[in-house]
């Protein structure tokens, strides 16, 4: 596929995307459509990129303004291979000076070139397809992929606006990286997004200050540049694991505890909040505080589950500090509080 053909092919969606670009600030569904277009363009671009790789010359990149290889951000390079990257001289056109090398391409002046909107697109599609083969970039494949990505986008957009805003305000470095949730392990540099935002501004010709927030992104827990104020997802995710570990020694009781911890097995009353964090015996057999007191005073003072004598002191400590199950809960709670600060 020649560059000319590529340019022609790309020019149509570029115009469309520009049209959509105006609406998308207003309309959320328009945003999704934009995403779809972007994904498709990214597919096409990856084809050309592969060709560019075969050429193996950086010179072609600079000489041909429509070469899409320039959309690659520098951090992506490690993943994407030894593809050469060239700084373009159109630095001054970038309003934020971040995504320098690409912005010029997408200015309305050079209309047949791919619109910058696509460049904020996931590197995943780019790297994935280009890494495998040129032939894999068929329409059907790219359609399926972009549908998936579109769904993801939708999820990401749901409710993450605030996080994005907060993080934008806090991390002036703006070097947010994010592992792509497409599990293609592509690190996407925030500069990509910046490029896109600024390009959007150029294309639409609007000077809306909130253009940066059009594409909300979530951080992965392992992102290096992830702001500290965000809740620690890894801890929350490990919560059930902690439960498993905690009750690993409790034998056959474990099943009952995990599955039906809602009521006391002795008096069949429902556990209240205090009861559910009350762990009277190390065997894991849980009863309500009321029955525990009754067993200590009127009964034989032994655990109904393992028939071991209740350790009164330990029981009191357990009920006060709420060891075991309530501990990870408290951790997560404090995390969420931190994140709100």
């Amino acid at each position, binding site marked *: 596929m020649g560059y000319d053909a590529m340019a022609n092919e790309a020019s149509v969606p570029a115009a469309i995307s520009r049209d959509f670009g105006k609406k998308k600030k207003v309309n959320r569904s328009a945003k999704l459509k934009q995403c779809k277009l972007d994904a498709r363009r990214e597919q096409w671009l990856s084809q050309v990129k592969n060709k560019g790789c075969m050429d193996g010359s950086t010179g072609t990149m600079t000489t041909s303004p429509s070469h899409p290889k320039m959309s690659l951000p520098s951090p992506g390079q490690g993943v994407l291979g030894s593809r050469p990257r060239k700084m373009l001289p159109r630095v001054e056109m970038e309003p934020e000076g971040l995504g320098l090398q690409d912005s010029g391409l997408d200015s309305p002046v050079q209309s047949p070139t791919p619109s910058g909107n696509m460049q904020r697109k996931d590197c995943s599609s780019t790297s994935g397809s280009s890494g495998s083969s040129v032939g894999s970039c068929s329409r059907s494949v790219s359609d399926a992929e972009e549908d998936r990505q579109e769904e993801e986008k939708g999820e990401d957009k749901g409710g993450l606006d605030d996080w994005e805003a907060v993080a934008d305000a806090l991390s002036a470095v703006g070097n947010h990286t994010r592992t792509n949730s497409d599990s293609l392990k592509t690190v996407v540099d925030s500069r990509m997004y910046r490029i896109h935002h600024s390009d959007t501004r150029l294309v639409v010709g609007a000077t809306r200050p909130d253009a940066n927030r059009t594409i909300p992104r979530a951080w992965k827990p392992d992102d290096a540049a992830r702001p500290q104020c965000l809740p620690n997802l890894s801890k929350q995710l490990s919560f059930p694991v902690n439960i498993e570990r905690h009750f690993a020694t409790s034998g056959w009781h474990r099943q009952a505890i995990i599955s039906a911890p809602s009521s006391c*097995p*002795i*008096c*069949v*009353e429902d556990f209240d909040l205090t009861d559910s964090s009350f762990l009277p015996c190390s065997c894991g*057999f849980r*009863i309500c505080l009321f*029955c525990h007191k*009754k*067993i200590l005073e*009127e*009964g034989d003072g*032994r655990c*109904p*589950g393992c*028939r071991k004598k209740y350790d009164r002191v330990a029981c009191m400590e357990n009920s006060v500090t709420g060891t075991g199950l309530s501990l990870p809960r408290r951790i997560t709670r404090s995390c969420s509080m931190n994140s709100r600060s």
Partner: protein
Amino acid sequence: MQASRARLFKEYKEVQREKSVDPDIQLVCDDSNIFKWTALIKGPSETPYEGGVFQLAFAIPEQYPLLPPQVRFLTKIFHPNVHFKTGEICLDILKNAWSPAWTLQSVCRAIIALMAHPEPDSPLNCDSGNLLRSGDIRGYQSMARMYTRLAAMPKKG
């Protein structure tokens, strides 16, 4: 009192729900008194009690489940750990090894297990215990089988 009632009611619902789970045990609550229960248990297979159906009477104290239910055989049975005349059962979980985690259903299972594995060293029925302790397995089995046929099986004809 209220706790035991709630607990027994829960057990009653459980029994109704899992009627088919354990076909060897049939637990019936007294129509007017939830503290009186009757159970029908089948004699375990490969024992002298096989083929017999034995009736148990449960008298549940108000402190239940802190205190164990009082259980006795209504059907006559020749077993070293069951009193031949009163039907009283010598079983640790009905005495000192009781745990509130046990239920009437699990007590029935324990009694079936006791029928399959008699403990002649703490006999309530001395004749039966002596037969076993002297090694006369055949004597014990024939006596137990005879009483099973006499008392725990439907009369022929």
